[in-house]
């Protein structure tokens, strides 16, 4: 299962919301879709879910075009929007049963599917509660359950972690990992970049409708970081280490923290490795040597203008 997004463009009047976006992802992958507000993430996701029509370009889900065969494409996509179900007068089970009916499931099959999805998303115990009475985390699970009812091979999730408490975020992360292991291709947008970097294999960063950078997290982190920050915690001789670091040519700045030293150096991962090698060769006893600042968040801050 491959999802190919090809030269996608969407105009709203004179405003170009999505501008010639192309990227690919496939089964078992979790792709982070990152960008500041108004970057075009939701528009792209709505186009993928066949809710909006692109001005030009196309997206093919396992070869099925969202422009030419939207009915076929929407059977392959489960869409989780950024808004959560809020009905006061419908229970979790009734809500899922309604959507199962809307997807054309009937009889025993419908009941079995709803039961299985409730069990998978851990909703069985709260299936009789009304949606309005649920916490955000629970509502998010209901939303995910709804998107999984027709067993789509592709999941498109718009800001699923927004507003969730840490426990709910961990639960969601676990569910996404299981779904990814089951072979689903998952596109997920989020503002919580640390969260995304923990679950995503790759990321696409967009701004003003254009892709700024894309690839695996390692790939997109590498070329962007001209200056790296390293945190070093020595067992002893902290003063000596501080003085010695100041003498190294590619070290830009050295800051003494409580029990560690923050070093800013220019160069690549090889330069970081070389620094550690020199410290050990010089007899410093290093407890912790941590490369800091090559995560998704710093890449995002580096590449976007905001």
């Amino acid at each position: 299962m491959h999802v190919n997004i090809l030269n996608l463009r969407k105009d709203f009047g004179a405003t170009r919301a999505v501008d010639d976006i192309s990227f690919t992802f496939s089964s078992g992958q979790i792709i982070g879709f990152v960008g500041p507000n108004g970057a075009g993430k939701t528009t792209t996701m709505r186009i993928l879910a066949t809710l909006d029509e692109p001005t030009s370009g196309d997206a093919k889900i396992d070869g099925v075009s969202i422009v030419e065969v939207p009915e076929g494409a929407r059977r392959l996509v489960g869409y989780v929007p950024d808004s959560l179900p809020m009905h006061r007068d419908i229970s979790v089970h009734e809500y899922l049963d309604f959507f199962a009916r809307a997807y054309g499931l009937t009889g025993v099959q419908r009941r079995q599917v709803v039961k299985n999805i409730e069990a998978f998303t851990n909703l069985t115990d709260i299936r009789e509660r009304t949606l309005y009475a649920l916490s955000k985390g629970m509502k998010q699970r209901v939303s995910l359950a709804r998107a999984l009812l027709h067993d789509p091979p592709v999941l498109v999730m718009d800001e699923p972690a927004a507003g969730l408490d840490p426990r709910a975020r961990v639960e969601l992360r676990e569910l996404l990992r299981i779904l990814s292991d089951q072979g689903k291709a998952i596109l997920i947008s989020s503002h919580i970049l640390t969260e995304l970097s923990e679950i995503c294999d790759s990321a696409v960063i967009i701004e003003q409708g254009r892709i700024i950078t894309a690839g695996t997290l390692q790939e997109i982190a590498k070329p962007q970081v001209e200056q790296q920050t390293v945190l070093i915690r020595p067992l002893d001789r902290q003063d000596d280490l501080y003085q010695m670091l100041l003498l190294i040519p590619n070290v830009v700045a050295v800051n003494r923290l409580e029990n560690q030293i923050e070093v800013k150096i220019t160069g690549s991962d090889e330069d970081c490795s070389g620094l550690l090698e020199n410290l050990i060769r010089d007899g410093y006893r290093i407890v912790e040597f941590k490369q800091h600042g090559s995560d998704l968040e710093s890449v995002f801050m580096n590449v976007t203008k905001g």
Partner: protein
Amino acid sequence: MKSISETFEKIDDRLNPIVVKELRQAVQGRFLIVVLISFLCLQLLAVGLFLTDKAVTESFTAGRNVFQVLLGILLGTSLFFVPAYTGIRLANERADANVDLLFITTLRPQSIIWGKFLAGIVITILLYSACMPFMTFTYLLRGVDLPSVFILLALDFIVVAVSIQCGILIGCIPANRVFKVILGVGWLVGTFIGFVSLIAAMFAPGGLLDSGIGSQLDSWKFWRGALGVLGGGSAIIGLLALLSTALISPLSANRALPVRIFATTAWGLTGVGAAIWSIEVNSLTPIVVWATLHILVHSIGLFVAVSERETLGRRIRRTIPRNWFLRPLAFFFYSGDANGVVWSSLMIILTLLFIGIWSIVFPYMPTGNEPEFIGALTSLGLYAFSYTLGALLIRRRFLADRVASNYTWVIALILLGIATTVVPLSLFFLEGNWDKEWLVASPLGPLLFFATEGYVSNSIAIGTVFAIFVGVLSLPWFVRRITGFRPPTEKTVRNSVANKSK
């Protein structure tokens, strides 16, 4: 037992999911329960009050009196509560982004609308069922026959059904809260007028109940009227349902197709009906009534048409016929500003043409003011065309960056307002006296003063000049739209594929 449960399961599977969801929500919500209990209490109270009055119970019309009160309560509750409940729920759902999720299921927009309608009908049946024991009681009290009870209940049911579909249409209109409240108040006033009129038609001296419905059951005249009400009600419900469906359909769909097919068919069928009626009563009046209705509808249609989309989406373009014969025909039935203007204008022209031909074929039919009124209708059509196309021209030429295409109707209304109020009032203050000629550039003038000699002909002359003027200025635009109405060419598709493979 197993076969019974299997049958029920099959029925359950075939039910529209929207009906199931709506009814589940209705019975779990407090609102319906409160209304139902209040309704029962009110009926119980009404019957109780009648029974405690000895003079009433001894009367031979006791059943009839109680029936009138009970039917009034039932009609009031059904006519105001059910459509409002259905419409408000739909409007709230439309405001919620989650409604989009329905469009990525296998549900079609028409299933959503019919599901909402059926749910409203089931709630109405629930209210009717709650009323039934009391209605039976009225028969036992004497003074009312069973056919009257059933026929009047059926008549009310049709009116309530139309009102439910009206509520759904208002709920579907994409507007802000203030505009929806204004529409809601309009609906409330309209419903109140409908309620009072219906009550008067049923219970006033000489009304339906007075005339003894039971004795008319074997007359063709009665059944013709009954079938007319049923057919008319069904046609209105169908039209409102199609309009509602068009409003909630995604932009990428050809929203105009079902509405225009329905309106064209209704035009033809009602035209045939009016023609038969006209021959039967030997009068031009039925044809004039038919024409008035259609010219009004299509004049309003022009305001909608100029506010339609300017370009067709790729999904719609793919469905444009490649066949050279079918494509020009399809042009009339596709969404789009030019398509809508051409279709509505054609319907107005055909309607006027029909009256013209009819007058030639049956010149002996006695006429009163009909020829002048037909002239007024002609000016109405000309003005509707001129003002709407003029508005489109102004928006395209001068306001393209400031006013979105879906607000062109507002410019048309402003132009119409200037012609109807600003110009006559300015002249009134300048001249110090009133002259009806000042309304000659407004569609209102010929409709009000069609009996005045020469007024309509002046109005037609001004309207024709105005229509030719905006028509000529818009001609290049029409040509562009007509020549651009074609499916994506093979070359475009090939280029698109080539771009993608790069």
